[in-house]
């Protein structure tokens, strides 16, 4: 009986203690990861999230230009189709910005994978910024693609590019933040559908996309001027056609104030863990 071959003893391993990850005042890596997750989430189903909205917007354009008699009609001295196009682009942007953040949070909550977002070392502010930036990206991407396709049908002018960029970003941000609030509040898909159908759709349809509010009776003009959607569409359109119903500066201020307030609300919701950590 032979001895088993001797096994040379393994030298003792020397591991250094794992160092505590160092995160500065902002967790840039975490923020970027969250942003990337939000963007890849919608790009993976781009036929639903980008191509679909573009087709629907073009459909609206076709319906309204055909039903209203095409180029014959004017709003002020602008041909109707040129008046209509920027409003439709803006509607597509804001609806998709809202859909992105609200559906992301909603689905994560229902499927339970919201913990993947809540557990990492991300502060409330970083969560709000990451989600909102994802929504803004979707809004702007949809807006850009829609605008490029529409250029084939409508000669869209360019009066004030700065105004266009500001309102595109500010409006997408506003609806992204609103989507965060709605996504955190809603506990069922019905509730989300109710917000979309009873609040977002009416506000965006009755915002002056399809008409100049000058045509409305005085009482309805007042109502329109209280609707924040009116300012984003009016300002965005002014960037293209150089004609606005409201003072452009007022529009910029309104959008900035609303964005700030909504950001604070979204921040508080993440910070308190309302319906997220309960």
């Amino acid at each position, binding site marked *: 009986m032979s001895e088993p071959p001797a096994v040379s003893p393994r030298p003792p391993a020397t591991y250094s203690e794992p160092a505590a990850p160092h995160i500065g005042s902002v967790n840039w890596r975490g923020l970027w990861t969250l942003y990337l997750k939000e963007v890849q989430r919608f790009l993976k*189903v781009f*036929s*639903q999230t980008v*191509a*679909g909205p573009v*087709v*629907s917007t073009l*459909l609206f354009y*076709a*319906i309204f230009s*055909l*039903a*209203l*008699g095409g180029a014959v009609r004017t709003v002020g001295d602008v041909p109707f189709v040129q008046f209509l196009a920027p409003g439709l682009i803006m509607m597509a942007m804001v609806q998709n910005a809202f859909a992105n953040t609200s559906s992301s949070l909603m689905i994560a909550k229902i499927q339970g994978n919201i913990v993947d977002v809540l557990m990492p070392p991300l502060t409330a502010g970083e969560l709000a910024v990451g989600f909102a930036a994802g929504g803004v990206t979707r809004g702007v991407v949809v807006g850009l693609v829609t605008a490029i396709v529409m250029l084939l049908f409508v000669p869209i002018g360019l009066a004030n590019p700065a105004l266009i960029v500001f309102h595109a970003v500010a409006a997408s941000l506003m609806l992204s933040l609103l989507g965060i609030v709605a996504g955190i509040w809603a506990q069922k*898909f*019905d509730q989300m*559908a*109710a917000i979309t*159908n*009873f609040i977002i*759709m*009416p506000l965006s*349809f*009755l915002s002056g996309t*399809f*008409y100049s509010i000058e*045509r*409305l009776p005085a009482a*309805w003009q007042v109502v329109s001027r209280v609707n924040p959607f009116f300012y984003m569409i009016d300002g965005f359109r002014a960037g293209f056609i150089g004609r606005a119903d409201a003072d452009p500066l007022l529009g910029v201020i309104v959008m900035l104030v609303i964005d700030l307030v909504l950001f604070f609300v979204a921040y508080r919701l993440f910070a308190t863990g309302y319906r997220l950590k309960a």
Partner: protein
Amino acid sequence: MPPQPREFRYVNFRGVWTLYYRELKRALKIWVITLASPAISAILFAAIFSLALGRFGETMGGMAFATFLIPGLIAAAVLQRAFEATAFSLVFDKMEGTIDDTVRAPLAPAELVLGYTLASATGALLVGIIVGLALVPFGTPLPSGPWVTVFFAFAGSVMISLFAQISGLWARKWDHISAVQTFAFIPFVFLAGVFFPLDRLPPVGQLIVRFNPMFYVVDGVRFGMTGHTETAPVWAAGIVIAVTAALAVICLHLFATGYRLKD
């Protein structure tokens, strides 16, 4: 006494009724999405065209614009609901695996098709009535031929429900069904003469619309409500019935072979 094997005779009426009842209940449980939302969008369309564009003073197709538009909006809501009711239900069950409950039940292919189709048509007609009532402030015309209206709304929902069953069986993912809806179905509904008469389109567009069976549904509903038509109503009814029959044959075949259902 040991349990006896159940006998169904020629038709499993209890089974068809159960499928019908489940489908209808499924749709009505989320009434905010299925009933309220179509009414809201119809009101928004009517509001934009009336208040803002001042179109209601004008005429279209030889009648007041509201009278022309409202039957179109009702028909569009009916067709959309008929599609969604069936397609989403089927795809949901397929994705969740609960389709087994339906496939394993002692229901023949024709009974499955009947249950899905009738439930979808019931919900669609309900939506039509609700949209019609919601648009009363804008001047919903009282149907001059109520039975013609009901016939076209019912036949249209049956046709679209069959189409939705085929699409739902074909779809393997939510992406697929939503692509059918966004890129094929909705454009064909909205460009089927809902918002404007045929002569607004260039000749090529008119020809395409005439090949769209939903155009005949919209036109038939409008004929029933206002007496205005752009085709011969008998011709329209014939086309809708023929397309429905063809879709029914395809649908029966797919359920009978278990296409993408039992694999």
